[in-house]
Each structure stands twice: as C-alpha cells, then as structure tokens.
C-alpha cells in the first residue's frame, strides 16, 4: 500500500448525449462511466469485469483519451491526463497502450505485419532510424511467438490467435508501462486463449508491465488478475484482491456474476443449476434510483431505492452496497 499508484482515477465520468425523436426534446444523458475511482499499482494486473454494456470498454478508451472524458481526473505517475493538449499526448501514448478484442478487425488489412508493428514507433519515436526500428520490430515479433519470415505477410493470412499476437507486439513495441487489454482473449478458442494468456503473463514478467485486463469471463480474470474491479451500469460495485473476491464476494452483483460462470464438471454444474439470475439489465438511459443494481438484487430494500451506496472500505476491500456485511455472511 505504501508504493505510489501508477495510475490514479478519481470520480471519472464519461457521458454520451443520446438524441430523442422530436425536435424540442432535450437529449438524454447516458452515463457510461459514472463516478469511477480506482488506483492501479505498478506491476499489478487489475482485472475489470461486468456484463456487456457496463462501461468496461468506454472506461478503457477514456483512460487512453481515445474518447473524451466528461469530468474527473486520471493521473499517470502524478501527471493529469484529462487536461493534456493533443500535442502533449505523445508521451502518454508511449506509456499507455491498448490491446483490443477483435484482433483481425483492429489491424489495418492493407499493411504488412512489419508495418503494423513499426507504426507506433514511427508515430511516437520519429527520430529512431530505420535499422533500429527494424531491429525492434523483429525482436518484438520473436517475443510474441511470430516468425521473422512472417514480417511481410498481411493480417488476413493469420488465424485469430496469431493476429492477437500481432496486436500485442504492436502495443508493446514502444515499451509502455501500462497496457489496457480490452477483452484480448474473448474471441479466441480455448486452446489458443490459454496460449495468449500465458504469453501476456510472460511479457509482463519480462518487461515489468502493468495491465488493466478487461474481460467478462471471471474464470480467466481469476487466472491473470491480482485485484479485481467489478463494474455495473458504469459504476464501481466492488474492488477487491483476487483471492478474497473469489473466496468471499461481498457485493450481491459479484455473487451473481460468479454464480453464473459455467463449471466444466457435470456433477457440480448440475448441482448448481438451480437459480439463474432474475431480470436483465435496466436501460442505461433510465437507471433505477438509489442503487443501480437494486432491480436484480435479492437483498434490495427501501434504503436501496432511496440512497445510492458509496464505495466504502470493509476488511480491506471496497464495496458499494448498503448490505455488504449481510451479503458476505
């Protein structure tokens, strides 16, 4: 706890105006990220989980300033990023990189593998000479398990797993400190997924990387993350160390997510199959009053309708729930 955070996020809001039919109607506000605060410690993997539409990708993109921030603060090693001018973003881009979910869609089909991996070097380190750039690209390719002979191939010639290796090489070639991985293995097959997760863990050890690892698969996150942040409807529900979270989830939403993860064991799976979740997500344009989760929560009461729970510390974990003590019991 004593080491200063690498990334500090405070009260971050990302809102989108949504037009309504009818000329005179004012647009509604979609709060995709709503008052989100967390720290990322140097060298850790922070897992971010939640159902689709809960703001995981919006948060990832906002951290990198790929989309505008509405309010709040994001500081990397103490430097405020939300107010940086465009020109001043270059050093930020070197320190923070992103890996995307759909490997093939995120690679330019007209560029060769070599060009794709070299591109961030050209953009962010324009003074680097050609020979050195080529060296770096080749070294990076080798580290992610691509062959030097593949340098002149095009993305469509690669399988999903190989394409994701290209995406990883492109993100790491500028030697960033923090890598935001947005569902990097969700689109991959089981046997390939585990290869890529192991690769990410190796690269983290070799390069001293810090990851924000976004995923909807809680079993994968348990494997890779040191701490986990649970998002629901743009809000933080819980932030807890991995082992504590999986052993004893305190937030009712965390419990719901965990109880739905399929278990590849027919005996256990059938014992558990009793109680699937009630209800689906509310509309993000018409969130319930009080606690956003209350329409699906088995513990909801009048206080949950009236009062939005704040993120508070309980036994070294952070939970936004009025009845967290009861839920964890």
């Amino acid at each position: 706890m004593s080491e200063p955070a690498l990334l500090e996020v405070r009260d971050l809001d990302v809102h989108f105006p949504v037009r309504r039919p009818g000329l005179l109607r004012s647009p509604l506000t979609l709060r995709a990220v709503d008052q989100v605060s967390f720290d990322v410690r140097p060298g850790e993997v922070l897992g971010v989980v939640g159902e689709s539409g809960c703001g995981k990708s919006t948060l990832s993109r906002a951290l990198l300033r790929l989309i505008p921030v509405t309010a709040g603060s994001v500081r990397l090693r103490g430097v405020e990023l939300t107010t940086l001018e465009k020109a001043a973003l270059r050093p930020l881009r070197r320190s923070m990189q992103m890996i995307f979910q759909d490997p093939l869609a995120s690679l330019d089909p007209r560029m060769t593998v070599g060009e794709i991996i070299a591109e961030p070097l050209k953009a962010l380190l324009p003074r680097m000479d050609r020979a050195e750039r080529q060296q770096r690209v080749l070294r990076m390719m080798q580290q992610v398990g691509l062959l030097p002979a593949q340098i002149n191939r095009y993305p469509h010639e690669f399988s999903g797993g190989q394409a994701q290796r290209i995406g990883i090489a492109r993100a790491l070639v500028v030697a960033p400190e923090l890598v935001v991985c947005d569902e990097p293995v969700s689109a991959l097959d089981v046997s390939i997924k585990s290869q890529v997760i192991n690769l990410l863990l190796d690269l983290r050890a070799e390069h001293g990387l810090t990851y924000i690892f976004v995923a909807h698969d809680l079993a994968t996150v348990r494997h890779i993350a040191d701490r986990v942040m649970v998002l629901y409807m743009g809000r933080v529900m819980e932030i807890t160390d991995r082992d504590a979270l999986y052993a004893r989830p305190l937030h009712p939403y965390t419990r719901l997510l965990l109880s739905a993860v399929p278990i590849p064991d027919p005996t256990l799976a059938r014992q558990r199959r009793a109680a699937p979740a009630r209800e689906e997500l509310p509309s993000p344009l018409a969130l319930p009053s009080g606690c956003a989760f209350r329409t699906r929560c088995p513990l909801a009461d009048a206080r949950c309708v009236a009062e939005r729970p704040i993120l508070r510390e309980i036994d070294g974990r952070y939970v936004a729930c009025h009845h967290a003590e009861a839920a964890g019991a």
Partner: protein
Amino acid sequence: MAAEALLEVRNLSVCFDTGDGPVYAVNGLDLEVRRGEVLGMVGESGSGKSQSWLAVMGLLAKNGRAEGSARLGGEEILNLPQRALRRLRGDRMAMIFQDPMTAMNPFLTVGRQMTEVLECHRGLSRREARARCVAALESVHIGDAARRLSMYPHEFSGGMRQRVMIATALLTEPQLLICDEPTTALDVTVQAQILALLDELRQRYRTAIVLITHDLGVIAQLADRVTVMYAGRQVEQAEVHTLYGAYRHPYTEGLLRSVPRLDQPRSERLATIPGRPPDLARRPAGCPFEPRCAYVTEICRQRMPPLVSLGDAHLRACHYDGALGRAEIGA
C-alpha cells in the same frame, strides 16, 4: 440407454468446392440423437460442428455437398429436394444460431415473423396464430407477450432475442432442436437463463436438443452425451460424466485442461495445447491431431485412427493405449 434414436447420422461428410480444391469440413460423422436427450457437440471453431448440422438441415452453402445418410424417424432426409426439406424444417426440426439477428428480418415485427411460420406450415388463421405466438413467448418466460409481438427485433436485448428464436422454433413443436452456439454472444448471467430454459423445454416437450458449443462449461451443464470434434472428425464420444471424468483422447484432455475454472485451485500457468488446428485443405494420411499431440508415435503419422468402441457407449479415435496425464503445462 434403451431410448430409441430419433435421428441417425451415418458416415456423413461435408465437402466444399473452393478455389484451392475440395475442402472436407466434416468426415464420416456417425451418431444418433435420441428422443428427449441433449447431445452436446464440442470443438474449436472450424472443427465442423456447424457444417455437420447445416448439412442435416439441408442448409449448406451452394458450394457445399453432403454425403452419407441422415434418417429422421427412420426416413432418409439427407439431400432431399428443397421443398421437402423446407417442410421438415418447419415441422419436425428447427435450428437456432449464435446471433439471432441474422435469422430475423429487422423490418418485420416479431409477431409478424412468428405468425408467418404458423400460417405457412399449419394453415392457421391470423388470430389463431397470434394466440399461439403469445403462448409460445410465455413458455420462454417473456412477460407482456401480447405487446411484445408488435415490437421489432432491435428493441429486444440479445438474451430476449434468443428467447424469441427459441419460441419461434418451438411453435411447430419440432422433435429435434439444433442449437448452434446459442449462448456464445450472451453474458454469463443471461447464458445461465437460456440454458435453464432449454433444460425446462426438453423436459416439458421431450424435444431432442443438439447443443453445439466450444464451451465445455455449457456442455457440462446440459448435455447427456457428448461428441468431441477436431478438424472435421469425431475424436471422442461418451456419456457426459464419462467424458469429463474418464476421457481417453489426448485432444479432450488438452481442451479440459486448458480451461481456466473456478472450481479448482488457481494454477500459476494454464495448460495449453501447443500449435493450432490444421488447414482442412490438406488431408493428412494420419491423425489430424498428430502435430500437437504429446503422445504421438510413428503409426499416428501413417494411419488415421478409426473411431472405435471402448465399451459403455464410449468411442474414441486414437492409436495410443497408455495412460493420459502428459498434457503440456504452459507452452
């Protein structure tokens, strides 16, 4: 296990004509589906799961050909004329897909799409058809069904759309429901609901369900028997508890060991299957899993292992007879 076979598939192959010559997506599939059971089919993408069942349904792409046999209730249905197939599809078998949007017309209300099925196949009046649709939506637990009939597909969430697809498929009370990755695009919470729904429907109507998925967790929850596919071939088939507890194929072992799972202690590294699936355009003489297998011996390269019975309805295609347990950790 005396239940009679509803569908018998024998030596089914699917071949596509491509610019690079013929590509065999499925080779010699042999299985049956019994009334009221859930048959799981698991394998990675490209292993031939979808094409096997599209062939049975008569829905292959134009450049695809099916060979072999598929008998529904004793009657040959493979490669029937399109008219006969269309009638079968509306009546005795139905298929739902990962993305319900692809099977829906975005410009028609859900009610219109559903009633059309009944008016075509059952000759019901508009009013009767509507009442049946309301009942069908209610049976998949869609509340406020009458009002929902006048909504468009995009007004439904992904999970609701999949429920609508299931309701539509069930309108004609099919004996066989083929579900191709029905929950892959959904969140785990919604997935759990859809799986519970399929289980309920199977019990209520004794519909036989084929559950196609790459997810061993989904299969474990619902399937009675499981077939494992690799590179267009069945490599193992068994009753579900046997498959998970006493698998005998190296590929099944690799798959089961590479899944991160919450019911076991966390390991530092995940087991992996090195390499990747083969290119189907090249047809190896030997075992298609050979380049990735930890148990490979000379014969594996020379001869294709046939699917043979190990007793107790357990089948597998592998030359290796020794103990498993050598799956690679951490490559």
